[in-house]
């Protein structure tokens, strides 16, 4: 078991009115699993993902990662976990606009204190792998949405994390680029990476092995995907 949550609650206090975004979530995710999280807007999907990916801490409950109780980890330790153990892909890409593709991909390694030479080598390998070799020196705001999201994946991969977290990664992409992206995630899963993906689309969710449905901050259903999609039977790309 790689990830485990026990009765995790998250409450946002804003003066008098408190929002109970998560109201007692317990779940476990195994190493190498491909999990999709679905649910209505405002149901608490992103809040859950932020806790799973060490971006925020639960209000109560326990959070285990790789056998360690990280519920009481310091901010510094959490930053270190974000740096080394997980990678992110956001709906809105979140690339540094005035930096090149290479610089964007190198960014996590900067905070891992990796030497410039190794940084460059490793970044170039990942960039090449995602088919962006010809874009290395381009500024990230000169890229198309699909390319941007692949840079984001390269950035997520470059520190060789255990888990990739993706919050609606295809949300800002056209269906062709979206599908291409799912192909990349599928491939990473094939190599043994654990993947946790938030999506609205049943079609995208069906790339995963398992779907967790969230409603009003609680798990409504946790199902195994019977008929999985694969990039091999994609509709849009030849």
């Amino acid at each position, binding site marked *: 078991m790689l990830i485990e949550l026990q009765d995790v609650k998250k409450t946002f206090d804003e003066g008098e009115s408190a929002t109970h975004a998560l109201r007692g979530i317990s779940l476990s995710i195994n190493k190498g699993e491909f999990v999709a999280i679905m649910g209505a807007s405002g149901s608490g999907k992103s809040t859950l993902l*932020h806790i799973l990916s060490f*971006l925020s801490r639960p209000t109560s409950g326990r959070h285990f990662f790789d056998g360690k109780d990280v519920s009481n980890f310091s901010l510094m330790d959490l*930053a270190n976990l974000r740096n080394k153990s997980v990678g992110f892909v956001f709906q809105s890409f*979140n690339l540094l606009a005035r*930096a090149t593709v290479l610089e964007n991909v190198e960014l996590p390694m*900067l*905070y891992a*204190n990796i030497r*410039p030479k190794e940084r460059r080598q490793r970044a170039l390998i990942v960039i090449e792998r995602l088919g962006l070799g010809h874009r290395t020196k381009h500024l990230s705001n000169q890229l198309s949405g699909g390319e941007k999201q692949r840079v984001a994946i390269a950035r997520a991969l470059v*520190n060789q994390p255990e888990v990739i977290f993706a919050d609606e990664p295809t949300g800002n992409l056209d269906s062709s680029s979206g599908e291409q992206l799912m192909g990349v995630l599928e491939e990473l899963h094939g190599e043994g990476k654990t993947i946790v993906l938030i999506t609205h689309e049943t079609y995208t969710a069906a790339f995963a092995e398992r779907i967790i449905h969230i409603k009003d901050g609680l798990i409504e259903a946790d199902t195994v995907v019977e008929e999985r999609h694969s990039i091999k039977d994609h509709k849009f790309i030849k």
Partner: protein
Amino acid sequence: MGFFDLIKTSLASLNANRSRSVLTILGIVIGVAAIMLVMSLGAGAQNLILQQLQAIGSKTIAIIPGREPKGPTDFLSAFSDSLKESDLKQLKNPANVPHAARVIPMVFGSEVVSYKNDTYQTTIFGFTEHYAPLYDLYPREGQNFTADDVESSSSVIVIGSKVKEELFGNNEAVGEKLRIKGTTLRVVGVLPKKGGASFINFDNAILVPYTTAQNYIFGIKYFNRIIVETDEEINVPVTEIDIISTLRNAHNITDPDKDDFFLETQAGAMETVSAITSVMTLFVAAVAAISLLVGGVGIMNIMLVSVTERTREIGLRKAVGATDRDIMRQFLLEAMTLTTLGGALGIIISTLLGLIISVVLSKALNATWTYTFPVVAMIIGLFVAAGIGIIFGLYPARRAARLDPVEALRYE
């Protein structure tokens, strides 16, 4: 994050906002330049005055009548008639002041001198003939008055180069007669142009035997100064003591607070001048330092704007593993880089201005105004600039570092 990467990151984001960065550091540039300029001009002025003090001679002691002024309101004591002919005799006595090589009385005052129909305002100095070796000042035309002239109150004068020019133009002055307060005096010598290298402006002066000045021009029986020249510089302190005890004896003074004279030496004057110019310089520099504070507030303001603008960037950096400390350092370093660059620019500008000003002043004052590159001030300036970056960057940097990553990533 390594230090080198930190610098690269900071420079990159400053470069991305180049014109804003330049405008932001203007306050620091002006502040540092102003302080540096004041410091170097202060040092220059001090040099100039000290240079003039050199001309007094390091072996001489001036005895000044009256009580030493102890404060700005103590000016009345400047008028005093306590130094008399009898004091001169006592001081010349080797039993009293063994190291006195020369004892030269001095009277002075401002008078109008007339030649034919021209009149001219000058300063009259009554001396013995020994002023010449004392000030290394010998007539370039004619000759000096003599000991006999002093003895017999002769009506002879030596005139400064400017006086000569004003009254005689290119004509011969030696042998001509001038009138001062109804007394006719004969010009026996004309002084060379001496310039501003002394406190006494000899160019615009008329020198007479002191006896003549006392009896015929000012009508007084006392001296305005007595100059004692010692045989060796190292004997100045002991001679000061000798003079004081001699004069106290002569004036029947037992309580030092009742002294009706005081002494001035080159060393003492230099100390006073240094102290005064240093205080003045520091004061003006402190005023200039206010602009540094204003500049610092400007830096803080811009850094806060920058933190707000880059909220998402901060969120992203945190998401990929930046610690609070990494973010804090990045923004602190940005502020520091800005102010240090500002400081460096200020130093360059003040150096250029200082050089120009020193050339202009040298011409204007007809003296050598040396530009001193204030190395210490430069180093201090750089450190202060960097320090201002740290101080005023601290608050914005902390704000950046403490941003919650989720909130920051959601920021529109």
